[in-house]
């Protein structure tokens, strides 16, 4: 939901704290789950992630979550799905050129990052998305990656 998404960016500091606190635990837990159940629980876990992140961030399940690096503003809500900052068409009021009723996700991202402890990572470049990951769980990806 748009208003919740904006709330999440306003409270990016708290979101960052939640992420830093619980993400390692979730990944640890999922690592165990994956060990025991293999791929059998992938569907419900993915669904749970989609619901939770969908509620707070309008997550699009790109499969390669960047929220902690983008001020808690999901870049996939940009109509051009830009993952490295705003385009040149941001309106004077900070809204999107394609969807004038929506605040530019990158204006929100820089705003959110300014409140975060480790917000500076927004300055790093991210290479284009692997489109095979779409619809997959970032949590499971983290659990399986190492």
């Amino acid at each position, binding site marked *: 939901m748009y208003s919740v998404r904006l709330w999440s960016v306003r409270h990016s500091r708290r979101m960052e704290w939640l992420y830093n606190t619980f993400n390692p635990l979730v990944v640890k837990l999922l690592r165990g789950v994956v060990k025991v159940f293999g791929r059998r629980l992938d569907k419900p876990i993915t669904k749970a992630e989609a619901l939770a992140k969908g509620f707070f961030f309008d997550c699009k399940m790109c499969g390669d979550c960047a929220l902690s690096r983008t001020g808690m503003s999901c870049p996939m809500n940009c*109509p*051009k*799905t*830009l*993952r*490295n*900052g*705003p*385009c*040149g*068409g*941001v*309106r*004077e*009021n*900070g809204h999107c*050129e*394609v969807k004038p009723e929506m605040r*530019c996700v*990158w*204006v929100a991202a*820089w*705003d959110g990052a300014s409140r975060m402890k480790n917000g500076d990572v*927004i*300055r790093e*470049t*991210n*290479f*284009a998305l692997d*489109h095979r990951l779409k619809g997959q769980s970032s949590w499971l990806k983290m659990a399986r990656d190492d």
Partner: protein
Amino acid sequence: MTDRAQIDAEGLNPGDPLPMLPGHVSHGRFERVLRAGHFAVSTEIAPPDSADPDEVLRRAALFDGHVDAINATDGSGANCHMSSLAVCALLTREGYSPIIQISCRDRNRIAIQGDLLGASALGVCSVLCLSGDDVSVGDHPEAKPVFDFDSVSLLQTVRTLRDESRFLSGRQLDLPPRLFLGASINPFAPPHTARVDQFAKKVAAGAQFVQSQYCFDVDMAREFMARSRDLGLTERCFVLMGVGVLASAKTARWLRSAIPGVHIPDAVIRRLEQTEKPKAEGRRIAIELMQQLAEIDGISGVHLMAFKQEEWVGEIVTQSGVLQGRKPWAPAHLAHLKQPASA
């Protein structure tokens, strides 16, 4: 005219590549001009809605002797025109130095990497990496937007092809494309404080020159450049500020409201309103902007966008004096195209 002399001396055709100078990444004249420390002028050619090659050359001939590079736009405003690659190929055959614009809107990474190799093979030496306008603002709003890349990923891709001589997949290239790598900046749109960081990101991704959106606010440009200098960006990247030619107060107001990201101060619009000859005043404004921008430390050139006023580019550049008497190379053998057939 030294380039011309060199071409004659070495028996090259106008479209043949120049020898690559030490420290350069391309064979192109545009990179040569910038690295030699000259103040450069680039402009934009509007690709025709036509399959006529002469129309492209006629449009390019308007700029002869006044600009160092010609940007071939890639479906600008998400409207359909002749492709930028084709326009560039027609121009390089005659010896022009075009800058191919590549937007991420219409092609995925397979098509774009293929086009980059093709462009280099056709003699294109400079590339401008853009995100691109969304399809919804153009004349085919029902089209599927691609955006497989964004501009930063595109820059990284060109750099991979050129410097590592491989595709993104890792497959080796027999000969890498020799491309001078460019990007766009817009210091005049929100989020204002992050715009310099955005510029820094593009430089980190490989941008060697940048061209900006229309600049009508010199104070804003000055402030942006001061912050860019502080970050050391101007030492790693040439900045060409965008200058527009306004035809009237009405066009200015339309640009400001209809094209997001274009910032025009009220004072500029007032000047156009209070004059009896708004077109001449618009050119006057462009000339003054060019002169003021040329004074700013770290600005290496201007990118003149004179949409539908291309015939005035020569006069504007001459009157501004920013080239300080330098005459950019132009193909002498195309003089017969100078006069449009309809004139």
